[in-house]
């Protein structure tokens, strides 16, 4: 048995849509553990009225849910405290991406799971690939659905194991038709959203690639210690960009909304290249106090978002945005600057170069990546009402 201080082992069962069999697989693994003599409980289970899955619950100890009143309605959430008191060796927790009702101790179920792991309890959990933060824009682009329940990539990277539950879309659509996934009304709505063959195919491909990426990340981490890397500096002599033994990426944000997509894209590229990643905002003074309230809120949101993805952020002081950025980049051996593509080239652009043009001209010694906004596929249907993030 593990020492009490050791962190629990996290296993994620990854799928690409409701009904592929994640919960079933989770319960099967719980039964297998029980057969091996492990003290295992079900911490949270979402039946969705699926008979096969509910049947797998037989013989398992289920920790009763906690009831929470919110605006006169009673909600049921996982009772993390009760699980901690029960202190099993292993716990099955459905729907890792779930957002708890306001009034819960923690905002997200994945945060509850962190508490269980910290207490030394092993966790088996389930999620769909579209809940991954870094894939949010891509998923929206081909499905038209903005998934609201998202998990930062680092949470998944920290899992000890990620296992894919694969099922061809045909078989999934059959399950949907048979009524094995949703009630008839919900199935009809679902068929207009995620449950189109092309969308399911795209999600499935993402899930396969993501699992491959997670597998690779784990064996590479086992293979080599990463080289020590310098911290960010604000003063000192400029340095030449690092020789490309490793990349250092600087994401330059503004108050504009595309900054969120820019941060996701930059972070995703950084993750795949095993690169360092930083976010910077340039302003004439070192804080945001004199920005118009709306802009300040937007910038703060972007910076908080970056920090939630575990990216180091900086507010840089400077009058000239492009020069400040490039100077900071040289100082810190940045190899790549990420910028958002200007939304629409104005007539003024002919007279006054855009920030992108200025940075491209100044930073002739490093790479500048101009990230374009992604647009929706014309063929994708508008999302029908009635389905939210937790149900996809």
């Amino acid at each position, binding site marked *: 048995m593990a020492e009490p201080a050791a962190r629990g082992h996290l296993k994620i069962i990854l799928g690409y849509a409701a009904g592929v069999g994640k919960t079933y697989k989770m319960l099967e693994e719980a039964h297998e553990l029980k057969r091996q003599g492990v003290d295992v409980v079900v911490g949270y289970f979402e039946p969705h009225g699926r008979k096969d899955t509910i049947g797998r619950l037989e013989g398992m100890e289920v920790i009763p849910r906690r009831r929470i009143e919110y605006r006169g309605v009673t909600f049921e959430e996982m009772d993390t405290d009760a699980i901690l008191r029960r202190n099993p060796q292993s716990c099955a927790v459905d729907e890792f991406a779930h957002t708890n009702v306001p009034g819960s101790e923690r905002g997200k179920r994945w945060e509850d799971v962190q508490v269980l792991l910290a207490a030394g309890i092993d966790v088996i959990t389930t999620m769909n690939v579209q809940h991954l933060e870094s894939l949010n824009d*891509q998923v929206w682009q081909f499905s038209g659905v903005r998934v609201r329940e998202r998990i930062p990539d680092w949470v998944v990277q920290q899992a000890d194991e990620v296992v894919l539950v694969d099922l061809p879309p045909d078989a999934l659509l059959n399950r949907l038709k048979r009524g094995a996934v949703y009630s008839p009304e919900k199935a009809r709505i679902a068929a207009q959203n995620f449950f189109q063959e092309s969308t399911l*195919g795209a999600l499935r491909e993402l899930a396969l690639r993501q699992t*491959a990426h997670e597998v690779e990340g784990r*064996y590479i981490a086992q293979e080599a210690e990463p080289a020590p890397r310098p911290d960010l500096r604000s003063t000192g002599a400029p340095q030449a960009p690092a020789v490309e033994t490793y990349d250092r990426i600087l994401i330059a944000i503004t108050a504009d909304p595309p900054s969120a997509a820019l941060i996701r894209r930059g972070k995703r590229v950084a993750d795949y*290249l095993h690169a360092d990643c930083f976010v910077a905002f340039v302003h004439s003074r070192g804080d945001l106090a004199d920005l118009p309230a709306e802009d300040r809120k937007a910038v703060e949101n972007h910076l908080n978002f970056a920090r939630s993805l575990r990216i180091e952020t900086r507010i840089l002081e400077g009058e000239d945005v492009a020069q400040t950025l490039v100077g900071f980049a040289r100082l810190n051996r940045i190899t790549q600057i990420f910028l958002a*593509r200007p939304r629409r080239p104005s007539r003024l652009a002919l007279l006054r170069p855009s920030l992108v*043009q200025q940075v*491209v001209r100044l930073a002739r010694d490093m790479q500048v*990546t101009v990230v374009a906004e992604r647009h929706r596929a014309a063929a994708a249907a508008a999302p029908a009402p009635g389905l939210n993030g937790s149900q996809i």
Partner: protein
Amino acid sequence: MAQNLVLRPERPDPDELLRKVMAEEARERRGKLKVFLGYASGVGKSLRMLDEGRRRKERNGEDVVVGATQLESTTDVRALLERLEVIPLRYVEGVPVMDIDAILQRKPQVCLVDGLAHDNPLSCRHRHRWEEVDELLDNGISVIASVNLQYIEEQHDKVAQIRGRSVEETVPQAFLGRATEIEVVDAPPESCLGCEGPGGEADRLRREQQLAQLREIALLLAADVVDHQLERYLLEHGMEQIWSANERFLVWITPYGDAGPMLESGSRNARRFHGELIVAYVARPDLTPAERAMLDRNLKLAREAGADVHALDGEDPAETILAFARSRGATQIFAAHGSRQTWVERTLGGPVDRLIRGAEGIDVRVFPQ
């Protein structure tokens, strides 16, 4: 060798339409192939295959038989086999082979075939079991098969390198590409360690690493198959593909500068993302000998990097590259800073500025030159 870009015609070619209709009809008569792909023995491919057969029989009432199984089986597998009709293997020159004539005669709706890579003795009608499966499919019998990654011909060298040993029998990857469905049987490496014999801790770690690498290859192989299926589906349904799960890096090379660093980065990015590397240049008629030499050198580097190289024709280089990038579903374009900027370009923006301005939905990465 540089290929010329052939743009897809706007209107469908009647011959192509006819071919499509005929292919569609043939596909309807032909049985459907479903393949369970595993990355090692012990992940549970056979079990999943048999369980699917059992469900189709018991739940859907389909007429299912077992055409071939492994000789050695676990208790779980034996329990499933008892609930299914098994057509016994027959022995040719002492080698167990699938009794294809008995299956054709029995004519079930669905036939389960384990060990897709199995080879037959020379006196059999088909050398390979996958060819027998092809015959079953042609006769309207659907097949559910299972195969281990190490037997996929195109993956053979890579797998042999990781495992340190090689196999004789193989199945061409194109055969999997023709499957109606491919399903990955995924499991953490620990679950297959039991079947690989004993060894110390170091041995176990090494095995685990090997298995993780094999697992990654299997997942990416399935992703590629799914990618092609998706492309075909969108094409057949007249849907535009503006999105790709796969990163495609388009490197724009010119006769005016060394594309080495850009190509190296492109190839590293393609490797890390398991994406595609595409290289293109816009042909110019009046190159100086020095420019010609630079272009040739860049092209040589591109081919060495394993890129798909394209020569494009067009008046406006930035526009030409953009049109090509869109037709190929590129997600990123790599371009170099222009070194020869005229005053007009400094004021109005050079090709790179225009590339950025026009690159709707595509990232542009500008490289030092």
